[in-house]
């Protein structure tokens, strides 16, 4: 590529085509930074994404924001046509589903916090299963005695459940308003959870 590209960025339509090609080719969502890194110098990935999203509104596939990343996905109303593509997944146990929900709504969440909410010990298999599904991962250790590990949800989780932001978790506002998300958490833990949501939203 010549040095000229440093100064002559491709025109907006060309940038949109490029983002379209890259997003189409990827099965996993890509962040704006990742897109930017693959575009020629001088391109504005965020602006191109905006135009592309508008272009695909109402089409059979759509550009979706999934957490901090973007992907093209089939329109949900066409799922009935996709029976052949459905991937049969092992049914999740009630313990796994509840553990996942607790991590998603309370993240970062320690094992002790999950156990306190569910009233039973978290079995090792559940955490492993959720990690294997790439729905949860380890967060930063909690800065409390014992420095317990925390769990947070992943980009894969946002992708799987079609969430544009952690704020889009169903019923999050109501749960928070009812004081059900921060009841017995120590003050610092509460702050930590709030921070995570904030920083995730800012990114």
């Amino acid at each position: 590529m010549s040095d000229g590209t440093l100064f002559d960025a491709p025109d907006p339509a060309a940038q949109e085509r490029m983002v379209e090609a890259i997003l189409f080719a990827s099965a996993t969502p890509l962040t704006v930074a990742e897109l930017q890194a693959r575009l020629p110098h001088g391109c504005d990935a965020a602006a191109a994404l905006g135009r592309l999203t508008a272009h695909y509104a109402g089409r059979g596939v759509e550009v979706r924001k999934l957490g901090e990343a973007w992907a093209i996905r089939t329109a949900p109303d066409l799922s009935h046509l996709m029976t052949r593509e459905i991937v049969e997944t092992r049914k999740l146990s009630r313990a796994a589903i509840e553990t996942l929900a607790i991590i998603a709504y309370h993240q970062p969440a320690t094992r002790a916090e999950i156990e306190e909410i569910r009233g039973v010990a978290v079995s090792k298999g559940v955490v492993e299963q959720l990690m294997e599904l790439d729905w949860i991962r380890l967060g930063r250790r909690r800065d409390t005695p014992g420095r317990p590990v925390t769990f947070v949800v992943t980009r894969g989780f946002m992708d799987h459940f079609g969430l544009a932001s952690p704020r889009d978790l169903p019923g999050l506002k109501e749960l928070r308003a009812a004081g059900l998300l921060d009841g017995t958490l120590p003050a610092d833990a509460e702050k930590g959870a709030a921070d995570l949501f904030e920083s995730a939203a800012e990114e």
Partner: protein
Amino acid sequence: MADEFTEGPARDTVADRLAAEALIVDVEGFEGPLDLLLKLAQTQKVDLRRISVTDLAKQYLDFVARAGAMRIELAADYLVMAAWLAFLKSRLLLPPDPEEEGPSAEEQAAHLAFQLERLEAMRRAAAALMARDRLGRDVFARGAPQGVARVRRVTRTATLLDLMQAYARTRTRDEFRPFVMDRDGVWTMEEALDRLRPLIGSLASWVELAAFLPEGWNRDPARRRSATASTFAAALELARNGRLDLEQSDPFGPIRIRGRT
């Protein structure tokens, strides 16, 4: 973490927990005492915040008694909860003791109600989450994704320090000396050329080549041989470039040169 929740079922050491887990029997599909309590509370059909904890405690203790009668081995967690509920129930029924430290019975009951409400809320949230349009079930990713081909390109780099160290190395390395030709006894062709070039311009007549050997190179045979060879080679080079003419009248006779204008 568990420490701050002292009024709950005690969770002690890992060993205790492991022992407890070994005893766990999934009684009628309940996942632990809190789950069972929630189920029982829901039968009261009131807002969980207005639940009667004394009634709930009674229901729970009845359930545990029933299980005991049926010789169902209950997990330790259930029994710990039963003991704690029996204690809480008795405190709730007695007038509060002003001397008592720590949370009041009402506070403990309220906290239990809160825990039940929170567990129920998390269950609803989990159900709502699972009901979303999910990848691979309701929405689909690209069926034929195209991977990004990775092309590896290696570039080399060096710093000024590397450069200086390298030069210092080439000039000091031990094996350096043996490779340097000892030039004391050698008259190089370059030197011969340098000597010949300025002289031939004014050379209009034939002059014997031997006259062009540098001073002091005539006595030592080795030095003379070197100087003769290089001067001869230099003469050939200059003849090739058209700078001079070369002649030899007979084999092994003297070689003479003349400048060409």
